[in-house]
Every structure is written in structure tokens, then in C-alpha cells.
């Protein structure tokens, strides 16, 4: 890499982290306008960007950051006060700076910052008399030299300055992961071969190679993990802007920021989460006056929490807003034929109806307007990752969404099952328990089969019947003559179902290949995988098995 290229890359990476820090600290500052620590953090990051941009000879980013810095200095010196208007101006400037940085790095012409710079200058020289200056924080001394304890070191800066870390292009890790997947398949083939040759020495070697592959996979998976704050930290700004635009007051609480997720998953969950948060702000939380009238605090609450549960990641988004009017949805669902008459839908079914593309836009029910917008997008993208969306809403008290996701996209643990001589894989994200039970314990009512699982009555679906894999004798039910039946209990988005299969074939790490099902096929597969013997197996999508 040439010198200039090396610098440009370093500049881009470091500037991005500082821009993220600027956005984060500005919002913190808006929450606590007197917080010198946040103000200093914004100043330092903008200042660093300015110095770097100047060194690179990037004119627009240099001028813009210089003017942002000057505006910040007015507040640090105590001459001007922090308020929402100036935060708006600064956020807008930071956005522009980000655009300018990215454009410049990409060798493109950055947008003209003249108007924004003029606004920053005008703000500085505007009559500040109306504002009462807060007590200056040691105005004699520049704040950057103040040795007041830093409330927190910017995590970004820490990770950057750690000499034992390095940045790697994600596409290299993707390539490594894919090659490992292929290698795992070859190993499986070798293992089958070794067995057929009956060579113990060969079997031993293949076994050892397998252990190393497994270990390398573990390391690659680990190295792809990034903390979720990398996307969650953008949300306070998003919610703030949406709230301001709709005249609502919102208290956003985010927990579980340090949870680590596969990089590709992280990118993929960003949009669905944005949809859910926007929906919560626009349609969930009521206007402050309305909330007051019904005895709720003026500021609505939105909680986003991320956590790891065994081999899956669970992300909850809940609001304490108006909730969803079940009756309106049911009525609408019946009118457009999505819901049978006389049937009381579960929350999950309600969600399915709302997630239908165009459900809400076709509706004139105002309390629902827009509620469905994006829900289909949310569901489709989460399902594409092998995850599920759970939903729960109570009219008047709020709405909760639960996203469940596998830890990584490429390699997943799966339960291998056999149905009518075909092999299928069930991702461990959804499987709760596999067991054998007596046929006589299956209850048959309303044309469905039910079983009792851990004290709960859950529906049982026969995969054999689902796949129309009838036996020669015409019996549709799996091994109807047998006394025992093999059952897997599944859970997704809070819903529990069971499926019956012919045989269990143990657990395996499978490499999932994306898959487009043929038109008209049963929509219960989320992908395909190649088995050690080289034959393909379909990956079952638990979310569609109910």
C-alpha cells in the first residue's frame, strides 16, 4: 500500500469513529446541557477530525470541522448556552461532515458546506443576550487541559489505540468462513471415504483434521463478532429526531450494548430495528397531552434490550404506548379474507396479518395507519437470517416485539432429522427438546393433533403429512402403526409447536447456503446445506411450521 493510500485509509477509519462519538456525545449533551464531559468529548473528536483532515489536505472537512469547533468553543467558554436549537445545528453539521468525509475519501466532490458554515458563524455572532450564560466552568483555563476525571474513555478511541488489534476487511472473514464451510464438507466426504476403506489410520487423521477445522471455525466466528453498540448507538439520535418531528416526548432506554454479534447479522438487523423504533415513535407512543389525559407520564417509554440466550440472540423492543386495537385488526383481517370467521387469532397470527404487505395502507382505520408499514420488511429480513419475530400487544398499555436470531449466519448448530428417507436440518435456534413419546399420548381434536409438553398443550405437526410423503400403504401419518413417535418441540417468537419426524440423526454444525424455493413449493425451508456424504439437505424454517 502506498503512503497516501495508507494515510487515507487510516484517516477514514479514525474519522468515522470520531464522527460516531460526536453524534453520541451531542445527544448526551442535549439530555444534560450542563455536562462539560460530553461537551469536551464532542470538541475533542471534532478537533481531531479537523487536524487529520488538514493533514490530508481535505479542504471541505477541514473548514467544516473548524467551524463546528468554533461553535463548540462558544459553549465551552460559557459564552453561549447549550439548547436544542444549537444541538440541531450541530447534529446537522456533523451529518454534513460525515458526508464530506466519505465523499472526500472516495475521491468524490463533497457537497458545498458554505450555507451550513454561514449558519454556524451566524449562530456564533448572534445576539446571545437572551440566553443566560451558565456558570462558566473554569473559564480561565481551556477545558481540554482541565484534569477533571473523564467520565468515560471513548471505547472507539481505546480500541483504536490498542496496538495488538488490527482492522480487517469483512470480506476477507467472509471468504475465510465460506472456505471453512467447504472444508468442513470435504472433511465429511473424507470421513465417509475413510470408513468405506476401513482404514483406521485414515479415519484417525480425518478425525484430527476435523477437530482443527472446528477450532479454526470457532476462532473465525469469534473474530467476526462485534459489539451491538456499533449500531445501537445510532438509535438515540434516530428516536430523538423522530420524536421531535412528531411532537412527542420519548425516553429511550437501551440495554445489552456489549452483547457481541456476527458482523453480517449486525448489519442485517439494523434496518428491522429502525422500522420497529420508528413505528413505536410514530404509532405506538401517544402525544404528550393525550398521555397526560389518560394518566400516563408525558414522556413515552421505549425499551430496546439485547441479550444472549443459549445459542440465540434475543432483542426486545417494547413501548408503553397505545398498543394495537385487536378488534380493528381482526375485523379488517376478516374483511379482506386473511382471517376465518369466528376464529380468535393469537398474537402471533395477529402479527402475521399485520405483516402482510399493504395490510395497513389499504386500511382506513386511523389507529392502525402505518402500523403495518415495514412489518413485512421486518419479518422477511429476520426470517431470511433464520430468525423469528414475536409480537405481543395490549390495547392501551403498549406493544412489544421480540426478535430471535442465531449467533452467526453461516454456520449453525442443527438437529438432523429424517422424514420419508430424506434428511432435514432444524436450526438449534428454535429446537427446545427432542424426545420419543407414546402414540397414545397424542390428543386429536378439531382435526389437529396436540401433545402435552412441559405442562403446556401444543399443536403437533407431522412432517410426513406436511410433505405429503405418503407411505406405500397410503397412510399419511408417520409410522402410524408404531407405538412410539419421535417429536421435536420448537419455540419461536414465544410460540411453541411440536413436529413429528421419522428418525433423529443427531446434532451437527451445518453450513447454510441461501436457497430460493421453487414456486409453489411448501414454504417451510430457509436454506439448504450439504451433508458429509455430499448429498444436499433442506433446512427447515421453524417459523413456518405452525
Amino acid at each position, binding site marked *: 500500500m502506498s*503512503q497516501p493510500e*495508507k*494515510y487515507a485509509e*487510516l*484517516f477514514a477509519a*479514525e474519522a468515522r469513529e470520531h464522527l460516531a462519538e460526536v453524534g453520541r456525545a451531542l445527544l448526551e449533551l442535549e439530555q444534560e446541557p450542563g455536562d462539560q464531559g460530553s461537551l469536551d*468529548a464532542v*470538541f*475533542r473528536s471534532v*478537533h*481531531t477530525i*479537523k*487536524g*487529520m483532515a*488538514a*493533514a*490530508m*489536505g481535505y479542504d471541505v472537512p477541514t473548514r467544516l470541522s*473548524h467551524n463546528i*469547533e*468554533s461553535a463548540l468553543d462558544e459553549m465551552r467558554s460559557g459564552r453561549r448556552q447549550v439548547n436544542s436549537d444549537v444541538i440541531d445545528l450541530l447534529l446537522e453539521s456533523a451529518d454534513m461532515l460525515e458526508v464530506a468525509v466519505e465523499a472526500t475519501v472516495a475521491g468524490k466532490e463533497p457537497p458545498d458546506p458554505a450555507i451550513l458554515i454561514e449558519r454556524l458563524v451566524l449562530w456564533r455572532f448572534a445576539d446571545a443576550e437572551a440566553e443566560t450564560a451558565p456558570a462558566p466552568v473554569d473559564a480561565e483555563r*481551556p477545558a*481540554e*487541559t*482541565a*484534569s477533571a476525571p*473523564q467520565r468515560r*474513555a*471513548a471505547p472507539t*478511541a481505546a480500541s*483504536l*489505540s490498542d496496538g495488538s488489534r488490527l482492522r480487517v476487511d469483512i470480506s476477507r472473514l467472509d471468504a475465510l468462513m465460506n472456505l471453512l464451510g467447504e472444508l468442513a464438507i470435504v472433511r465429511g466426504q473424507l470421513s465417509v471415504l475413510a470408513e468405506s476403506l476401513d482404514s483406521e489410520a485414515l479415519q484417525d487423521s480425518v478425525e484430527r483434521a476435523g477437530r482443527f477445522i472446528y477450532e479454526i471455525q470457532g476462532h473465525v466466528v469469534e473474530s467476526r463478532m462485534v459489539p451491538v453498540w456499533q449500531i445501537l448507538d445510532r438509535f438515540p439520535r434516530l428516536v430523538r429526531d423522530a420524536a421531535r418531528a412528531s411532537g412527542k416526548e420519548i425516553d429511550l432506554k437501551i440495554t445489552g450494548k456489549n452483547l457481541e454479534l456476527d458482523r453480517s447479522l449486525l448489519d442485517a438487523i439494523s434496518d428491522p430495528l429502525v422500522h420497529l423504533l420508528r413505528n413505536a415513535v410514530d404509532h405506538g407512543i401517544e402525544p404528550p397531552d393525550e398521555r397526560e389525559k389518560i394518566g400516563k407520564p408525558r414522556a413515552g417509554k421505549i425499551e430496546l434490550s439485547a441479550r444472549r440466550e443459549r445459542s440465540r440472540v434475543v432483542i426486545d423492543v417494547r413501548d408503553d404506548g397505545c398498543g394495537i386495537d385487536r378488534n380493528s385488526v381482526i375485523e379488517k383481517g376478516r374483511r379482506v379474507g386473511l382471517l376465518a370467521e369466528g376464529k380468535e387469532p393469537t398474537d402471533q397470527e395477529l402479527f402475521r396479518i399485520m405483516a402482510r404487505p399493504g395490510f395497513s395502507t389499504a386500511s382506513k382505520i386511523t389507529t392502525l395507519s402505518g402500523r403495518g408499514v415495514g412489518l413485512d420488511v421486518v419479518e422477511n429480513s429476520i426470517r431470511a437470517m433464520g430468525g423469528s419475530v414475536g409480537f405481543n400487544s395490549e390495547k392501551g398499555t403498549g406493544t412489544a416485539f421480540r426478535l430471535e436470531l442465531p449467533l452467526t449466519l453461516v454456520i449453525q448448530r442443527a438437529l438432523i432429522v429424517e422424514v420419508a428417507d430424506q434428511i432435514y436440518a432444524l436450526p438449534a435456534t428454535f429446537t427446545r427438546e427432542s424426545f420419543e413419546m407414546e402414540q397414545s399420548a397424542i390428543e386429536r381434536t378439531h382435526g389437529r393433533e396436540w401433545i402435552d409438553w412441559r405442562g403446556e398443550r401444543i399443536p403437533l405437526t407431522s412432517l410426513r403429512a406436511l410433505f405429503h410423503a405418503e407411505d406405500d400403504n397410503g397412510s399419511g401419518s408417520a409410522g402410524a402403526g408404531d407405538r412410539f413417535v419421535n417429536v421435536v418441540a420448537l419455540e419461536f417468537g414465544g410460540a411453541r409447536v411440536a413436529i413429528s419426524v421419522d428418525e433423529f440423526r443427531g446434532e451437527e454444525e451445518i453450513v447454510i447456503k441461501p436457497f430460493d424455493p421453487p414456486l409453489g413449493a411448501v414454504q417451510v425451508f430457509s436454506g439448504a446445506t450439504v451433508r458429509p456424504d455430499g448429498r444436499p439437505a433442506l433446512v427447515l424454517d421453524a417459523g413456518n411450521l405452525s
Partner: protein
Amino acid sequence: MSRTVLIVDDAIFMRTMIADILKSAGFEVVGEASSGVEAIEKYKELKPDLVTMDIVMPDMGGIDAVKEIVKTDPEARILMCSAMGQQGLVVEAIQAGARDFVVKPFQPSRVLEAVQRLLG
């Protein structure tokens, strides 16, 4: 023997750039620090012939770091690296014991000139 340098700046980008300039002129970069606190520790440990010091940094800025370093070693040779618009701070840094300053964006020739003068 080549002269040793400690580079203090919170941006890796800046540290890399300064290091490249100095290395090309035959200096040995013995250490880097990203904050004032770290600069003081590294100075005690490495006893470099020269320190380049940024002004605005988290965890103690450059001016306080200069004061602390000069307190323990009055002979310390520190070159301040300031950005545009920090004249006031540069003066303060010189009063605190820094020997000279360069302004970002750096001209390699200007940096080397200042360094030679300082060590000469």
C-alpha cells in the same frame, strides 16, 4: 546512535504521519502515547531525547502533560503539535516548558527543522 522520540497524539493517523516523517530522517520512534497520562508514564519509562506533544487529548491534555514531565525532568525536550487557532494554548505550553511548536497540517521540512533545532 540515532536519537529517540516519543510521539504523543490521540489520533493514530497523526502518530503514523509524525512517525513516518521522523523515521525517514533517521530518528528512532521508541514509543507512542494517546493521552497526557500515558505520555507521562512512557516518558519516565523510555527517557526519549524528544517528545512530540498534541494539545487536545482525552485523559489529560498536552499542556498539563508538559508541566508534569518538566517537573520530573527539567531538561525534557518537548515539541508541541498544535492545530490552527490554538495560538493562545501554544503560548501557554511554551510557558509550561515546551521548547517549540509546529502547526498542523505538518510540513515535513518544518517538523524536521524544529526537531533539529531542538536537539542541536
